[in-house]
């Protein structure tokens, strides 16, 4: 046993070397991603912050009321957002929402096509599934370190870490939705001469749409749960005051910032929940 302990396999070292290798030879690639994502998140955050808070509150309230045909939800939305303004966390909330929106956007952008491919290529799914499991089980902090090295401090490493954590949801649910399309529907379309593309856009995706939307909702909630962790690598948002409160043992501040996160979470969940739909089963 001693021998085993003395002759340590340097897996950690290997990984570190690999990361070094990537930073040495692919820095241009990571720089490129950083610039794009940085620009993207900044644009979203700046444009949201450009509007006075009351306009955003009015817009979100109107949207929620319209989407769910419920004045109760509208009232709840307005009151919650006003409460956040009252707590003094408006700007942080906007950054958090930006992170969630961007992470969800990127996750859906890559997750849905990956799910579609996985549903059509069983071998690819066989390879993808353990990867997804790994992405969701590896503690976030572990890949936060290389993310920091590749992408520097700020929104981008936070975004990347969030995407890694959240993207399995849309992939899995898209896969589920597409692969559960009943054969008779596929055959009906085929018998009328549907091409592969038509089959995808006229049968498979419409049929999987509710499931893909469930993937979107899950993705949003998963992204939100990464807010505090993302703030550790310098992503702006509600995670920052939470971290500060932790470092200074400031119960009041911690509670208020935490409350704001909870409110954002509840609001997003309520608004994203699928409204009563027409047709379909």
């Amino acid at each position, binding site marked *: 046993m001693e021998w085993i302990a003395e002759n340590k396999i340097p897996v950690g070292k290997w990984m570190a070397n690999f990361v070094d290798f990537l930073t040495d030879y692919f820095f241009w690639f990571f720089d490129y991603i950083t610039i794009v994502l940085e620009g993207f998140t900044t644009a979203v955050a700046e444009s949201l912050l450009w509007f006075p808070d009351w306009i955003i509150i009015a817009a979100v309230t109107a949207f929620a009321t319209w989407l769910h045909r419920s004045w109760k939800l509208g009232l709840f939305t307005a009151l919650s957002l006003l409460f956040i303004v009252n707590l003094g966390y408006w700007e942080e909330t906007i950054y958090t929402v930006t992170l969630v929106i961007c992470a969800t956007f990127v996750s859906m952008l890559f997750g849905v096509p990956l799910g579609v491919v996985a549903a059509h290529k069983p071998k690819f799914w066989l390879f993808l599934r353990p990867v997804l499991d790994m992405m969701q089980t590896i503690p976030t902090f572990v890949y936060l370190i290389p993310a920091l090295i590749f992408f520097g401090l700020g929104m981008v490493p936070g975004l990347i870490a969030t995407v890694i954590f959240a993207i399995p949801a849309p992939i899995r649910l898209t896969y589920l939705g597409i692969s559960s399309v009943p054969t008779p*529907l596929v055959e009906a379309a085929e018998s009328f001469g549907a091409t592969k593309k038509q089959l995808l856009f006229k049968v498979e995706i419409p049929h999987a749409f509710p499931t893909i939307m469930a993937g979107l909702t899950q993705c949003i909630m998963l992204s939100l749960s990464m807010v505090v962790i993302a703030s550790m690598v310098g992503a702006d948002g509600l995670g920052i005051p939470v971290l500060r409160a932790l470092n200074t043992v400031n119960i009041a501040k911690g509670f208020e910032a935490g409350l704001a996160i909870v409110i954002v979470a509840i609001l997003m969940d309520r608004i994203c929940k699928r409204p009563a739909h027409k047709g379909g089963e």
Partner: protein
Amino acid sequence: MSEDKKTSVSFRNVDIMFGEKAEQSEALKLLDAGGTRKSILDETGCVLGTADASIDIKEGEICVLMGLSGSGKSTLLRAVNGLNKVSRGSILVQDGDRQVDIASCDKDTLRHMRTERVAMVFQQFGLLPWRTVEENVGLGLELAGMSVVEREKIVLEKLELVGLAQWKDKYAHELSGGMQQRVGLARAFATDADILLMDEPFSALDPLIRNQLQDFLLGLQKDLNKTIIFVSHDLDEALKLGNHIAIMEEGRIVQYGEPEDIVLNPANAYVAEFVAHMNPLNVLQGASFMTPLNELDKEGDKYIANFKTSLFFSVDGAGSALDAQIYDDAQSLAIKPISTEEDVAGLNDDCIVVAPSDMKMRWMIEIRHRTSNPILLSDGEKIVGLVGDDEIYAGILRQTSLGQEEAA
């Protein structure tokens, strides 16, 4: 049915084998060596779908593929539009002046055949639940690349044809099963394909609706004159709809012929078993169970129509009915020739009916019931035979006894 009609779909020695490509050739070799479905499955893991299926289906006729589940009837049907791949043999489908072999044609040709030439109706309807009735009916046209505006007119026309125009904005699942299948029919009609594949389209419906839809289809077929290949496991349905019936067992066509042919001369015990359970009333033609004229007892130059009531009749030199009278009172009965089933309703007592020899049993019984007299059967003007109580009973009984004998 005239013989000069063009062949619309032609199956030529079609073998369909399900399984890995690598094992298929091995399985086909086994099949050629006389392997059964089970031995092929055990040795190669391939499932035999159909073996050596060859039939020609003429334009405008309804051909019913019939058999128990697993007999390969759906498999054969689905090969016509390429949903099942043909392992060996060919399926020639008429396309304008050329014939396309579905088994070997390229992707674009297959797509052309599917969008323009062959349409399909499914057992479970296969309607897209997130689409309205109108959008479902337009599916084929949409896939063929037709614009919304062009589609609308055609879709509405087809919906009117099936009587569902006012339901066009409903979702498929809001309709009853029978209505859903009419949507399925409209969808198949919409592409104006001449060939219609129907895979047990009415099996999922209750008997009453099934019967209605069968009549509905027959009514439509009179005007549309499509080539229909229809899969059914119900002989009554097959006999009612089919111009020709192919009976399948274990992937092979064991008998192919006209409905009466199947009923009167079942090729083997399997077919006889089906026949035993069918309803002969709508199938058997008078000629098949009558007593021919030359076998009737004679009294002088008069034929005995009914010994008990002392009913006699005589024919003239050309063979048409001349006179019919009850022996005792020497009074002539009226002789009424009828030509179609519609005439039966107007009949009453005290006449002798001369009916065409291809009239179905059900109408013979109806005539017998209305007139209380036997029926003379004619072929053109000529009297060919007679149907009385004995013939009717024997006709029904022979049906069942035949089935039992053969099945035993």
